[in-house]
């Protein structure tokens, strides 16, 4: 049992490495990719059923599902060859994360269909996939001079499954973010060791010294920080203040006291922020249509500063519906089957 899992992992790593290599060498077409992958030889005898790559990387649509058999699977007669008309129970290997130095930012999902022997590993891998899902929650930096409000926002954010850091002032926030004054024009080269990775900043407006608005402007004026979404909170409902903040680049303006329901509005901004960094998308459990086709994969791989903040632990998101041209028939996937063809 354990051996099987290892093999899957090995296979996974092999594919990942191979893909990385290919992009580095300038793979230009689907055919090139596939040919190289045939040799990747999933040790579990799986079948590569398809690819999804963001439209930025290849202009043409992906190839039809290929049946690629590893040499191992040839040796082991598989009595349970899937019926092509029926989507087979899959093993999903969500994994690919390429460093920002690559030209293409892409998301690929490989569905490996295990043979009968590996069916039992399926559960484990899926669970593993689920665990990966739970890794690296979004990190929010909350700024407020009020101790009570810091405690409150921290609890609100934690309850909503965010990782939280609270600070009492704008200057402390900038310090944590690794803000450097002279960075207004040049992108950051390498991350400061003391920087923390932050997916969203939520700040009070009225603070002594640096106001929330001042903090917002500093963040948006910094090449390394400008893509971090900023939300402003205030106890006062002043329309001119609100519009000033929104015009200054704030994503949202919350009236205090902030409530759990307000926090739901954070998620799209965090995800958009991540998307701007790496062309990555939110994992959608039931993507039924192609309405996201190319819409959010921005070419802002120039904001590699964001990626400097991303740890290698960050998993790739499976944006299953990216890159497929409309009209293609494909099985819809749900969170339990995790099939993509």
């Amino acid at each position, binding site marked *: 049992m354990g051996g099987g899992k290892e093999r899957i992992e090995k296979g996974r790593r092999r594919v990942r490495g191979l893909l990385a290599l290919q992009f580095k060498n300038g793979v230009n077409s689907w055919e090139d990719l596939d040919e190289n992958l045939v040799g990747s030889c999933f040790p579990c005898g799986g079948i590569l059923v398809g690819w999804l790559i963001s439209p930025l990387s290849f202009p043409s649509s992906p190839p039809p599902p290929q049946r690629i058999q590893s040499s191992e699977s040839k040796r082991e007669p598989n009595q349970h060859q899937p019926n092509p008309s029926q989507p087979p129970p899959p093993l999903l290997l969500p994994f690919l994360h390429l460093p920002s130095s690559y030209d293409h930012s892409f998301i690929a999902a490989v569905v490996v269909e295990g043979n009968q022997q590996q069916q039992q590993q399926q559960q484990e891998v899926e669970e593993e996939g689920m665990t990966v899902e739970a890794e690296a929650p979004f990190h929010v930096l909350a700024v407020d*001079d009020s101790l*009570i*409000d810091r*405690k*409150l926002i921290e*609890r609100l954010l934690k*309850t909503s499954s965010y990782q939280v850091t609270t600070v009492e002032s704008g200057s402390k926030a900038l310090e944590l973010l690794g803000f450097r004054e002279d960075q207004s024009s040049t992108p950051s080269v390498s991350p400061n060791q003391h920087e923390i990775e932050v997916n969203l900043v939520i700040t009070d407006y009225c603070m002594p010294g640096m106001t929330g608005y001042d903090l917002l402007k500093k963040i948006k004026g910094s090449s390394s920080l400008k893509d971090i979404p900023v939300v402003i909170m205030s*106890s006062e409902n002043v329309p001119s203040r609100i519009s000033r903040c929104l015009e200054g680049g704030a994503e949202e303006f919350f009236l*205090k*006291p902030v409530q759990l329901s307000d926090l739901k509005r954070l998620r799209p901004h965090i995800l958009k922020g991540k998307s701007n960094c790496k062309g990555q998308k939110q994992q959608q459990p039931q993507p039924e249509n192609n309405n996201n086709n190319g819409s959010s994969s921005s070419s802002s791989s120039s904001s590699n500063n964001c990626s400097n903040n991303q740890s290698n632990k960050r998993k790739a998101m499976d944006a299953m519906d990216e890159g497929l041209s409309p009209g293609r028939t494909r099985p819809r996937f749900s969170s339990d089957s995790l099939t993509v063809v």
Partner: protein
Amino acid sequence: MEYSNLRRQAAYMKKSLFDQGYLDEQFYQLEELQDDVSPNFVEEVVTLFFRDSARLISNIEQALDKCPQEFSKLNAFVHQLKGSTSSIGASRLKNECTRFRDYCDEENLEGCLKSFQKLKREHAVLRQKLESYFQLLRQVGPVEKATRPSM
């Protein structure tokens, strides 16, 4: 059963705090945030609040005593105080803060002084009531989260 009596008492106490306007909806929001991970969240926040508000009230008192004409300073203190009262749902106290702030804006010292006395009283009353409430809750033990007093 003594236990269910205590629970009823606690529920009744909470209900009166709401009925009499000491607490508002925001207090329920705090309760919503209390769970197994943070089982004493409400009491912790309230404790923090009273510590912080006592400090601010003391600051206001000193300012009124020493430099009463510096209304902007008074305003700044009461702004902070009002923010905290709003965050925990201390409705009556929050309203008193608003009145005090209005007098500050008008630069009405007499109004400020009168309002401040009321503010201090409200603060003391709320503190005593909430202390009793939490004391009772502690005797009762972990109560299930009710959004409304169900008894």
